[in-house]
């Protein structure tokens, strides 16, 4: 049983009051946050007031009283919202994001604002002026990013569930590095209203949780059409919780992309070994394995870093120091105010991406870079959709590296970008995917795998991942925090 399901049962069985629970829980949060820096803000006072009120009420809401961490990209009304950036120092969200509203209506309590890479740009949660987020299993290692805080708060039992955003792997990669489950839903499955935009055609909000069932419980609450986001699609929400209760791999056709498995020389040998074992588990559980070809998926990183940065350059143009955000004191004219405010407010990785995006959209380079990338993106999507005519799901590794030493890729952004090699193509195609633990190394580091589904096939992913989890339970190591 996952942490969310377990705590809900204890609350429904009235083993303790919410007030008693949270008085102890915040002690643990503060202690572990000192070591991990998973939360940038902790909302103890607000939650204790909420708990006192909620103790008088019936405990029947699906997420009644349960502690959640929310990535610092997602609005919670009247609480700080900074995208882990100096640019938004002091900003408070004027309204709830739709996902926050849905969680709150289901009874969830927001215990903290989860750390992340600045404007969700990064794979290690190091790109932030508010401090690196540490892996709870080995504090010298990266938590993964960009939703590092969202993964760590769940792995270190500082929340039973969290929300992250996934633009190129930012939910699945930290979930993988922290030994938990993370789902990137279909583009359009979950509303982006109230979520800070990074790359609008790729961003998607999703849950991180202790196990597959807990992950399904959260998606069940946040999924569905929202009139405040025209890209959220009016497609019925399946019964994800029911799907987890019918774990099934038998007879499912699972594709193995040959491009992801044919050259494992750049993959850590331990990851390679655990992925071979995972494929054996799929086979043993009755899945029919079939090689598929995603010829253009290896171009994913190149496409992603042109499309995502172009969209980022456009989305982040709004940060001009006028209506909100950092305003430079070094100003003469309005133009200088804008330039100085942006240069002081954004960190290096954000500046790098804004400039790369500006370049790919600029006259003379638009056709050669941005348009070409969009064309290859369409091929990536077509190949995935063709593959799904032959198979039900696709299995792939999440990352070629083990959680890396903090600081090891900071001078070489391209090496850092390559951490996303197995995740970005899923975002380019807009498809859903779930990452889950498949093994644990002798160095006390988790290794994950991912299943990728066709559009709006989240229920199938939950059912298959749940079957895998039952067939291959992974024993976690000792927390280092």
């Amino acid at each position: 049983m996952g942490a969310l399901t377990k705590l809900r049962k204890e609350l429904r069985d009235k083993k303790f009051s919410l007030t008693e629970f949270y008085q102890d829980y915040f002690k643990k949060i503060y202690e572990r946050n000192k070591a991990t820096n998973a939360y940038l803000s902790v909302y103890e006072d607000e939650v204790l007031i909420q708990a006192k009120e909620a103790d008088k009420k019936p405990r029947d809401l699906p997420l009644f009283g349960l502690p959640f961490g929310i990535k610092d990209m997602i609005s919670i009304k009247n609480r700080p919202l900074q995208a882990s950036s100096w640019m938004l120092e002091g900003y408070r969200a004027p309204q709830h994001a739709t996902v926050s509203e849905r969680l709150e209506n289901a009874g969830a309590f927001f215990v903290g604002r989860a750390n992340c890479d600045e404007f969700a740009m990064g794979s290690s949660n190091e790109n932030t002026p508010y401090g690196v987020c540490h892996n709870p299993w080995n504090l010298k290692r990266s938590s993964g990013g960009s939703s590092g805080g969202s993964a760590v708060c769940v792995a270190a039992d500082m929340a039973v569930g969290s929300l992250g955003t996934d633009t190129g792997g930012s939910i699945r990669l930290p979930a993988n590095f922290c030994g938990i489950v993370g789902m990137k839903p279909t583009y359009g499955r979950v509303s982006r209203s109230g979520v800070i935009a990074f790359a609008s055609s790729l961003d998607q909000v999703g849950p991180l949780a202790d196990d597959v069932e807990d992950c399904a419980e959260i998606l069940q609450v946040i999924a569905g059409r929202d009139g405040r986001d025209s890209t959220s699609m009016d497609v019925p929400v399946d019964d994800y919780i029911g799907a987890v209760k019918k774990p099934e791999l038998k007879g499912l056709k699972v594709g193995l992309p040959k491009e992801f498995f044919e050259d494992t020389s750049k993959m850590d040998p331990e990851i390679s070994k655990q992925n071979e074992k995972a494929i054996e588990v799929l086979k043993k559980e009755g899945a029919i394995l079939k090689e598929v070809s995603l010829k253009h998926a290896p171009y994913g990183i190149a496409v992603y870093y042109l499309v995502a940065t172009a969209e980022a350059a456009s989305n982040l143009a709004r940060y001009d120091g006028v209506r909100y955000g950092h305003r430079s004191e070094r100003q003469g004219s309005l133009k200088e105010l804008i330039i100085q405010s942006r240069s002081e407010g954004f960190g290096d990785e954000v500046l790098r991406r804004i400039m790369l995006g500006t370049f790919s959209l600029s006259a003379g380079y638009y056709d050669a870079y941005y348009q070409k990338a969009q064309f290859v993106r369409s091929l990536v999507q077509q190949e995935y959709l063709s593959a799904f005519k032959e198979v039900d799901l696709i299995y792939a590794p999440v990352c070629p590296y083990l959680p890396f030493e903090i600081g090891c890729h900071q001078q070489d952004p391209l090496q850092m970008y390559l951490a996303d090699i197995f995740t970005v193509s899923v975002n380019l195609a807009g498809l859903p995917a779930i990452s889950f633990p498949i093994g644990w190394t002798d160095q006390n580091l988790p290794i994950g795998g991912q299943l990728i589904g066709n559009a709006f096939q989240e229920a199938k992913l939950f059912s298959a991942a749940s079957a895998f989890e039952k067939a291959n339970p992974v024993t976690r190591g000792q927390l280092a925090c």
Partner: protein
Amino acid sequence: MEFSVDKVAKLAYVSLTQEQKKTFKAQFEDILKYVDQLNEVPIKPEEAKDMGKFHVQTAFYKALGLDPSQTLREEAKNEDLNQTNLTNEEALQNAPKTGGLPGELMYEVPSIIERG
């Protein structure tokens, strides 16, 4: 291909230190060399004209038997109109600087008309 850090910084409305310029130039050259691998993908002449028109959800709508443009229009008509906007106070609460009379506050920025 020459990547001019100064030119792109100007277009992006940012200014960089000398050290940033040096570091970024080397990093951009590496990144652009890497993305040049996209040139390995051939494009047929008939594909070239629609090259940049990709929309991620079009295939999903088609698979569901829906016309994307029609669907988006209908959804906008049905739902997107009845939304509450921020009040003046809410919109201004995060402004770095405001000015004007009480009750009629506005964003304050440096003058854009120079005195003669």
